[in-house]
């Protein structure tokens, strides 16, 4: 009896202690993580605004200015004209001067911002007289609108995602590429990318319809998000196909399809209603086929190959588009087919990365800013593949150098890139393979060498574009490497699962 009493007491105190310790440590951990997240967000905002006080694209460069003016011009146009004429050339809407060429959601956003701008100061959006407005108060308004958009749309899903995985959000929040393009160069990529993140988070939580709504909105904000569409499609279809019964599969499929169709209908309704043909004009503006194979010196394969053979001079345009289509699909499809067969979260992320990178490298008419799409997938991959994802993010930022030179933002670019790499290096486990160590050294050394060379050497007369070209070849080689590596990761784990 004595023995049992003693034992009971001991057991109870032990359990009590254990539960107390666990609960208190868990509480302190979660509260410290919350405090840390708050801190990361605060730092992220400061860094963003520190970039925002710097120059924007086309600052003080009439007559065309840059993307900043484009966004402001869209506010002016959407505010002044009836919706039907937003995308149509007319005496009141000169499409040659930054005509609207993004999907309707962007136009609605511009319209809403236009109202805010008019309330603040009508001169911001005065028809025709406001071209090139970029004084300090206006910059404050424009920059604040991007920060608000990012706070509202991009950061919440990102933080939800890192909270779910209990990982550190600092690298994701400090990714320099997005900061430089959105808060420096001036665009609203954070909205379409944020919606994509929201879609991934929703899918991860098994809210398929919600996820499809988010992704449809992303496409309707910026057509570039189509780079991500194939994996979303394959994932959703794959999940439906894996339902135990046909009825379940069908009901899921219908639900998703309905969500997508309704979202699209909702966004496009104002253009559809009296005269559906208006949609064609919008589509024509959004998908210009008449543009070149790539813009400026972008790190796409076609640009890299152009050193050897300029494909666009050899082949007629129809052949060229076909060539792009075939190679892109060839690169992208295997990953997506695997995703279709095994629609899990990991495959979704890898396929998102592979598809958007494949489109960036091989598709027709690529912008340097499109690298943000694979970068977003890489941000999602950070918790799983810290080293390679950070490496990719660093190189993707590096590939923006020619744009930054044009925008006079090289100092900001270098500072943010060094900051990002330094923070990452502090978090990284030491590289254990000699190959990896050498590869990192070559990559880092090569980029530093190229930057220094550009700073010191003036390009020879015969090759004025030599440095942008070298940059794009350097980045392109990396991107190809990352593409192959991602494929290897995806199919290696797949074969392992089979073995098990």
């Amino acid at each position, binding site marked *: 009896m004595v023995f049992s009493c003693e034992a009971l007491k001991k057991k109870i105190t032990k359990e009590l202690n254990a539960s107390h310790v666990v609960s208190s440590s868990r509480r302190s951990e979660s509260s410290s993580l919350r405090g840390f997240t708050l801190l990361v967000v*605060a730092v992220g905002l*400061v860094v963003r605004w520190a970039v925002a*006080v*710097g120059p924007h694209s086309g600052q003080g460069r009439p007559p065309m200015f840059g993307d900043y003016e484009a966004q402001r011009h869209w506010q002016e146009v959407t505010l002044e004209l009836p919706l039907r004429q937003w995308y149509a050339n007319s005496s009141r809407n000169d499409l040659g001067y930054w005509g609207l060429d993004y999907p309707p959601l962007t136009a609605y956003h511009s319209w809403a911002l236009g109202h805010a701008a008019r309330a603040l100061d009508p001169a911001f959006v005065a028809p025709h007289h406001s071209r090139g407005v970029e004084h300090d108060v206006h*910059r404050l308004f424009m920059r604040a609108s991007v920060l608000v958009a990012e706070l509202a749309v991009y950061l919440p899903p990102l933080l939800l995602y890192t909270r779910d995985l209990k990982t550190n959000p600092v690298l994701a929040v400090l990714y320099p590429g997005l900061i430089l393009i959105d808060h420096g160069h001036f665009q609203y990529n954070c909205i379409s990318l944020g919606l994509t993140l929201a879609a991934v988070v929703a899918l991860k939580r098994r809210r398929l319809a919600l996820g499809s709504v988010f992704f449809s909105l992303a496409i309707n904000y910026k057509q570039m998000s189509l780079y991500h569409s194939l994996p979303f499609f394959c994932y959703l279809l794959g999940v439906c196909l894996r339902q135990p019964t046909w009825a379940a599969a069908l009901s899921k499929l219908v639900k998703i399809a309905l969500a997508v169709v309704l979202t699209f209908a909702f966004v496009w309704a104002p253009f559809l209603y009296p005269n559906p043909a208006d949609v064609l004009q919008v589509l024509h503006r959004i998908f210009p086929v008449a543009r070149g194979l790539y813009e400026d010196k972008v790190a796409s394969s076609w640009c890299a190959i152009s050193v050897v053979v300029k494909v666009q001079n050899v082949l007629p345009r129809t052949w060229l588009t076909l060539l792009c289509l075939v190679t892109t699909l060839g690169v992208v499809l295997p990953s997506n087919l695997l995703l279709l067969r095994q629609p899990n979260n990991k495959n979704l992320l890898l396929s998102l990365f592979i598809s958007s990178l494949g489109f960036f490298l091989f598709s027709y008419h690529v912008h340097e800013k499109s690298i943000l799409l694979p970068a977003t997938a890489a941000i999602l991959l950070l918790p799983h593949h810290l080293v390679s994802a950070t490496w990719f993010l660093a190189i993707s930022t590096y590939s923006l150098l020619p744009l930054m030179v044009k925008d006079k933002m090289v100092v900001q670019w270098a500072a943010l890139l060094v900051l990002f790499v330094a923070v990452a290096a502090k978090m990284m486990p030491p590289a254990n393979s000699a190959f990896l160590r050498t590869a990192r050294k070559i990559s880092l050394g090569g980029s530093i060498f190229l930057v220094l060379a550009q700073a010191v050497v003036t390009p020879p007369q015969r090759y004025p574009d030599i440095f942008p070209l070298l940059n794009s070849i350097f980045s392109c080689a990396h991107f190809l490497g990352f593409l192959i590596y991602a494929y290897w990761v995806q199919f290696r784990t797949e074969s392992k699962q089979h073995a098990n």
Partner: protein
Amino acid sequence: MIWFVYGLLSCFKLLLVPAYRSTDFEVHRNWLAVTHSLPLKQWYTDETSPWTLDYPPLFAWFEYLLSQVAAFFDPEMLRVSNLNYASNATVLFQRLSVIITDAFLAYGTKECCSFIRASGVRKSSRWTLTWGSPISVLALLVLGNAGLLMVDHIHFQYNGFLLGILLISIARMLQGKYLSSAAWFSALLNLKHLFLYVAPAYGVYLLRNYCLCDPEEPESRGLWILGGKRLSISRVAKLACIGGLICFASFGPFIFAGQFGQVLSRLFPFKRGLCHSYWAPNFWALYNAADKMAVIVGKRLGFPIVSNSAVMTGGLVQEFEHTVLPSISPRVTFVCSVVTMLPALIKLWLSPANPLHFVRCIVLCAFSSFMFGWHVHEKAVLLMIIPLSLLAVLWRKEARIYLLLSTVGNYSLTPLLFTPLEIPLKGLLVLCHAVYAFVQLHQMFNLQKGSILRLPLLNRFESVYTLGLAPLFLYQHALHGALFGAALPFLPLLLTSTYCALGVTYCWAVFYFHFLFSGNHKRKIH
């Protein structure tokens, strides 16, 4: 670790290169030009630019050194007549010079950190953490201080460099290297004479702990005995030698050039008003506010109060005549400062061999001169915040005062930046510093969680006061314009300085009380 933090923050500071810069930028460009292209005789006489050289000679030598490098960036900036010149290379060079000389701040912090680690004054399980250990927190609090970032890297000054030298000197004192500490401090005085305010703490501490020594010590041959101690002549002579040598190195060339009087007249101009155009949040801000209130109330009650309009829009003019309360003369401010310093100095004398009391005394000396000094600049608040950071990572009570003072003090610096684009930046910087300080110190002292109206480490009253800064910020930058338009332009500034003055005064009182009456600290070091 500290150099890593320094590198990270330097990257951030680089982002601020194109940000707004005040006339101080042109001031320093002019000094570069003056020291580079004029002979020594004319450094303190040149009046081409209104921003004449009015720092002590060692700072002029510092500018001379910088100008040698500046010539590689853009020689145009070194022409004296090239007023308001700000090419891209000039901006980059000047900004870089601030970022690079901040290395002194990093080094000073590093020395203080190594003392704290070695002294064992703070026992904690957190020493093993990378980012959570007391020294990492200290490094980030000092190097990433929002006030310094705003004043140095946006507004443009070299406070980080100067405070860095102060920290080096403090670290030497903590380590017991008295002569080295005195040398650094006299160099600091020759860089900026504002630091004379904290000289009494140095004087008392050195006299008590270095010059007075036990009769058994070899250097103790001395004049008289005081409480069983002797005043060591050799040590006094050493101190005087070192101080004299450094002053001579800085002033010497000017003495030979017959410029000594001219230099002194530039250093101590007595033609400025009681308060700066924006009132620093000190006692006189409260005094001025009380005067204005009295005028308004008095008029309501029908007293015949004569006031000219300049007084009512006051603050925009430098000279400020009080209407109801007695006017203040420089002598009164001087007496007030000295009288409020005295108790702290006496306490320091009575508690020998406690170098942390020396740090406290520095903070209190800076506080007293800030509270009651003549024509105090709002930037002087950094002189309290930076040394106080040292104590904040050691004791909970001081952490609490630090949190309150640094948040209010940093906030009180925000009126320096008023251009539209910098408004969110300054708000975010202050917020960021506050979030970091609250989160880290809360974790370091391992306390219970706060609630919405109760910030960690602060009591409810202090928390509400601190949170009140947010609506004040909103009022200042948005609501006031919406409510009054262009009318009452001085009201937001008046509100800010009065509101901050309340907090600063409160911190001063609490800290002073804590220093005087908290016993002679059982956890004495050594």
